[in-house]
């Protein structure tokens, strides 16, 4: 009789494999089992009366190869929300990239669920505009909703110093992680069981202005598109319309027409550069905003974009290295509080949330090594000056090194 692993969850294996971007064939090779076995584990096929599960030693190998804790594969799957996930992504985003992001997004929600057992978080306080048919929204409606959102939070029409803090203050769970794909910028979802809004922001762009816009774009989905069905949001045509509306909302929310245009003295690249420092919105988004508001004509906007590209700003805009990127704090603070107050220990966290520790740290925003201090090198001494390093290398190589030739093919 087969000695399988009781409680093994095949869906978790698929999730972990997808997360590592491995095919079942390559995983099978790495673990030393057949591709069919992987497939049967994942599908949870039944062998006689018992489900087909890996033996304990096989699970050890799977766990080691995928670098996931063993407990992860023994944990029940999280019940997914039925509400749509909104992606801010390019159409080139692959299915795999989306799946990986979605898995991490689920972990994020599981982490928050654990947290909510111990701490009270700010209650969600987002306006909802009861939009059931997005096609009926005009550009002016969206402008009005963006202004109403500012009023809802008693904000004037000046630049917003920190959108992450604003949303966290109002009950939105925000996390900044590496979405592992340049084509994915952000995603958001309302949890249907407790109406908590969640937002994932990509950390890969390293631009405060872009990130601020991404978050405002997700805010648009949470306020404007929260009543739309999954079908509407996933349909390619309607998805594109919804994305355009979210863009317009984000622009109007971050750059209110009246105050922004009052600051805009000359709609030139240098003029936008100066404004970026204050409004913390990308130069590209400001050009689009001016075009939407009909401050500049299409032809002029095109000229600006040509010169924008010539200056190399499409890759990296000015001030991107200077403006500080807004960081979420709520999750991190909650865990630090629980550990500090001895409500839970670090071991409790890793036991109850059996994900790779690095992923947990990233999602929660904890410093690297917080969950596994023993496994981390806390301080790596480095030489201060490159000259000193070169001098050492020179000294070292002069002492005992010799040049070894690469073998040549015969």
């Amino acid at each position, binding site marked *: 009789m087969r000695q399988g692993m009781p409680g093994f969850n095949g869906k978790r294996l698929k999730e972990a494999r997808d997360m590592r971007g491995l095919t079942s064939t390559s995983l099978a090779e790495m673990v030393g089992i057949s591709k069919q076995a992987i497939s049967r584990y994942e599908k949870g096929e039944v062998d006689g009366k018992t489900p087909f599960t890996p033996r304990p030693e096989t699970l050890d190998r799977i766990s080691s190869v995928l670098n996931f804790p063993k407990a992860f594969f023994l944990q029940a799957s999280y019940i997914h929300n039925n509400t749509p996930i909104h992606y801010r992504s390019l159409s080139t985003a692959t299915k795999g990239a989306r799946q990986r992001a979605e898995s991490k997004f689920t972990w994020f929600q599981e982490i928050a669920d654990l947290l909510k057992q111990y701490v009270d978080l700010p209650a969600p306080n987002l306006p909802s505009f009861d939009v059931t048919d997005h096609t009926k929204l005009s550009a002016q409606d969206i402008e009005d909703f963006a202004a109403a959102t500012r009023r809802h939070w008693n904000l004037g029409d*000046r630049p*917003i110093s920190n959108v992450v803090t604003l949303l966290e203050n109002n009950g939105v769970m925000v996390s900044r992680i590496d979405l592992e794909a340049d084509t994915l910028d952000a995603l958001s979802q309302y949890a249907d069981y407790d109406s908590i809004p969640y937002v994932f922001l990509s950390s890969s762009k390293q631009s405060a202005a872009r990130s601020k816009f991404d978050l405002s774009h997700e805010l648009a989905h949470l306020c404007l598109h929260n009543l739309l069905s999954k079908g509407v949001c996933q349909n390619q045509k309607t998805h594109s319309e919804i994305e355009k509306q979210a863009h317009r909302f984000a622009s109007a929310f971050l750059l209110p027409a009246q105050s922004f245009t009052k600051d805009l003295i000359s709609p030139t690249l240098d003029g936008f550069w*100066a404004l970026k420092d204050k409004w913390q919105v990308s130069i590209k988004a400001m050009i689009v905003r001016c075009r939407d508001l009909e401050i500049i004509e299409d032809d002029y906007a095109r000229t600006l974009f040509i010169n924008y590209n010539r200056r190399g700003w499409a890759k990296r805009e*000015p001030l991107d290295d200077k403006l500080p990127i807004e960081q979420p704090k709520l999750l991190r603070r909650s865990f630090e509080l629980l550990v500090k107050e001895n*409500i839970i*220990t670090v071991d409790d966290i890793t036991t109850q949330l059996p994900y790779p520790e690095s992923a947990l740290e990233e999602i929660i925003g904890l410093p690297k090594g917080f969950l596994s201090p023993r496994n981390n090198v806390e301080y790596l001494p480095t030489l201060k000056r490159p000259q000193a390093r070169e001098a050492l290398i020179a000294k070292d190589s002069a002492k005992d090194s010799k040049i070894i030739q690469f073998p040549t093919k015969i």
Partner: protein
Amino acid sequence: MNFGSETLLNTITGSISRDFFKDVITGLNGAHRKAVTDCEANFSQEVAKDCFPIYRRAMVEDAIKGIGRNYGFNARSVPNKSKSSSHVEIEIESEGKRLIFTTLAVYNCYDMSKFRKANFRKTLAEEAQLSFFKDIIDDGDGYYGLILYGAKPQSKDINFAYLGFPTANCKEWYGHYNLNDLALQKDDVEMIKDVANPMLKKNLVKKEQ
């Protein structure tokens, strides 16, 4: 975008209102536009091309002189040594220091090729900025700055406007500031207070140490 010492920047922003710079940009744009329109309307294409720089200079100098006077600064036309032409200077007194500005159309905001041809600029730079050589900026009696502007060919708008402070030898910039930046009130923002603090639920049991 901007570079230069804090002392210089503080002297500029401490003594000149942001609105002045805003009006200067608007004035430069207005003068440039009018020059383009008038030259196109009144001359053949070839003649328009020839007279445009002179006509625009006149429009700009006139506009800048008016703006300077609106702000109570000493704005005047100053003839050159041979009295064959004149340029507009705006002189601003600030805490015992003098700031002197003139205008200059350039190809790009760092362009110095035209700059050294005019003797008055070299003289102003040497006289006002001699102290820069000695690294005793605070003891100098003034700063000479150039309102630099330029436009793409056939464009009805200027595409940059800077305030540049040349070194006394007129070969480098001591300070260089985007006028759009000087015109902006930057601390005027909605400050979001960080109040997202998690609270422990009541009756939680602490772990034993």
